[in-house]
């Protein structure tokens, strides 16, 4: 089912949490609301669920406005960050509660519970209480409780954040697989850009109650709309250099760099911010065009790669190279800035001014 958010605004007292959010989640897509804590993403999810009142705007499921509909009448399911299992009920009862409370006959409830438990491989835990389960098992029960009712829309509020790192990786792919099986629209909230990138069809990057960019993971990664998105997505984070622009060149870090083609209305911007990912920089032995001379101040080994911190005049940049790349601390190096890999933002507004080639 398609979910449309039209001009959604939320105030808590005099504080504006969400400002005119307009988004369309196509039917059966896995959509992620991504942003740092306090950006309003959970509030937005709770408004979709009907747990939070809408100050202004409307939420539409399919062709039905659901603003005034109680949560139970929206045919949604939600997985909470804390799992929110009913502590006094067994796993079986937890899974079946939503069906029982809606008056499903008990034989059908049992069948549905068994089916979901089997899919999630928790059928051996059905008679335990939530307190007797591990974090990963609780997670599965919470998922199962959401799946058992066959909802139109599946809402998840940071469901993986309480799991250990290893389990998180396996659950990521499982969640993605469940989504494909379920045939429901999934709205997923996270502050973890890796989760957003790996699982989603579409990502809405949010900051301070405003949607900064809405697109596929590839789009937000390779063509960030503004400086916030550029800095938030990608690990290690993007390097930023403030530069004085002259035509299609810019002066930064004690040298001159060529810029990628800029949009036509960008001609006024004299001070720009150049963004470049550590993976897109190269350490080269000799001087040349688009190369800056710097000094290696620190090397961090990550495993198969290493991060090299290079100091230029007035700016410090991270370069990611292969672990066996020959470079020493305190040595002088040249770093190549490939113009095609540069992102350019207007210094004041932070908006990208790179001319976008359509993908």
């Amino acid at each position, binding site marked *: 089912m398609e979910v449309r958010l039209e001009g959604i605004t939320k105030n808590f007292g005099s504080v504006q949490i969400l400002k005119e959010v307009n988004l369309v989640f196509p039917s059966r897509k896995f959509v992620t609301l991504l942003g740092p804590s306090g950006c309003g993403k959970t509030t937005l999810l709770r408004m979709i669920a*009907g*747990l939070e009142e809408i100050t202004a705007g409307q939420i539409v499921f399919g062709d039905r406005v659901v603003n005034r509909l109680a*949560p139970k009448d929206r045919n949604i399911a939600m997985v*909470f*960050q804390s799992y*929110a*299992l*009913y502590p006094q009920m067994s796993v079986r009862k937890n899974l079946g509660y939503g069906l029982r*409370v809606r008056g499903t006959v008990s034989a059908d409830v049992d069948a549905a519970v068994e089916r979901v438990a089997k899919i999630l491989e928790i059928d051996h835990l059905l008679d335990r209480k939530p307190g007797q389960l591990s974090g990963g098992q609780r997670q599965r029960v919470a998922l199962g*409780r959401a799946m058992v009712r066959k909802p139109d829309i599946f809402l998840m509020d940071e469901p993986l954040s309480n799991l250990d790192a290893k389990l998180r990786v396996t659950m990521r792919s499982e969640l993605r697989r469940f989504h494909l099986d379920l045939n429901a629209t999934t709205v997923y909230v996270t502050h973890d850009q890796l989760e957003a990138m790996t699982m989603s069809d579409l990502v809405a990057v949010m900051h301070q109650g405003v949607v900064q960019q809405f697109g596929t993971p590839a789009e937000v990664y390779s063509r960030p709309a503004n400086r916030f998105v550029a800095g938030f997505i990608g690990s290690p984070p993007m390097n930023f250099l403030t530069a004085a622009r002259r035509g299609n060149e810019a002066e930064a870090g004690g040298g001159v760099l060529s810029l990628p083609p800029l949009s036509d209305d960008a001609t006024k911007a004299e001070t720009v911010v150049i963004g470049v990912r550590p993976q897109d920089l190269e350490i080269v032995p000799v001087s040349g065009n688009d190369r800056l001379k710097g000094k290696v101040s620190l090397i961090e080994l990550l495993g198969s790669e290493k991060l090299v911190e290079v100091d230029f005049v007035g700016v410090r940049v991270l370069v990611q190279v292969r672990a066996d790349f020959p470079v020493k601390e305190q040595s002088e190096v040249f770093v190549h800035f490939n113009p095609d890999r540069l992102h350019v933002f207007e210094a004041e507004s932070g908006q990208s001014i790179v001319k976008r080639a359509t993908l």
Partner: protein
Amino acid sequence: MNSASTLWKTVKNAMLYLILCVVTFLICFPLIWALSTSLKPKSEIFATPPTLIPHNLTLENYEALLTGRQQYYQAQGAPQNTGTTPAQFFTRWFINSVIVTLGSTLISIAVSTLAAYSLTRFRYWGRSAVPYFSLLGYMVPSIIFVFPLFLMMVRLDLTDSLWSLILGYVCITLPFCMWLMWAFMRSIPIEIEEAALIDGASRYQVFRQIVLPSALPGIIAASIFAMIVSWNDYLFGRVFINSIDNLTLTVGVMLFFEGTHVDWGLLMAASVLMTVPMAILFMALQRHLVAGFGAGAVKG
């Protein structure tokens, strides 16, 4: 070296247990003495030297209380049926105490649970101040309330009825019960309720099926508190009730002192019988009590 330290450990433990035993004995002695006296025949109660374990065990005191037989006057060789004796009313008082205790506890718990739910789940003016004021109310000694309450009971024409006691005990137990339930309810994560709302439950179903079971330890803790206060109260029973039929145990038992003679055996048997229900209740539920007060303490 090693054996010396083991020895020291043993000695230390032994001393610790000795101290514990002495303290426990001191605390329990009145109860033990009451139990012992209640099981002695009259001749042995004032025997010198006193006996802790009765030489001649007898249940006559209990029998007198529970059957209401006028054993006291007969023992004096006086003519029978010369008047009423406290022992006659013991079972009546016991039942009164039970009614009053259960009645006031039920009302207190029902009101405080609903109030706490509202205070922790809904937003309205003054909701954060109510729990603190209610705790303040509990800190005021009940003697301050007793006369205004008495005047109210007169107005309501409830004096000398068990209702006056039930309502009076609600007045003194409700504030603390509410504070306790409030602290407990705050520790129940709201997501559980939201999950149930999404699952399809109505507000009432959420309260009945999700909140109440989760709040059970708190409810038990608050109930025990309310029961102990109501069961042990003397003041309200003394002021509100006039007729001997409507007395509760605490006030009624005092009548054993009135008259020319104190029958210590009966008095002690009555004390033991008064203590037993609370002791059983406490032992059965103390596990929950700790959990309940604990949750309140951490979150409150």
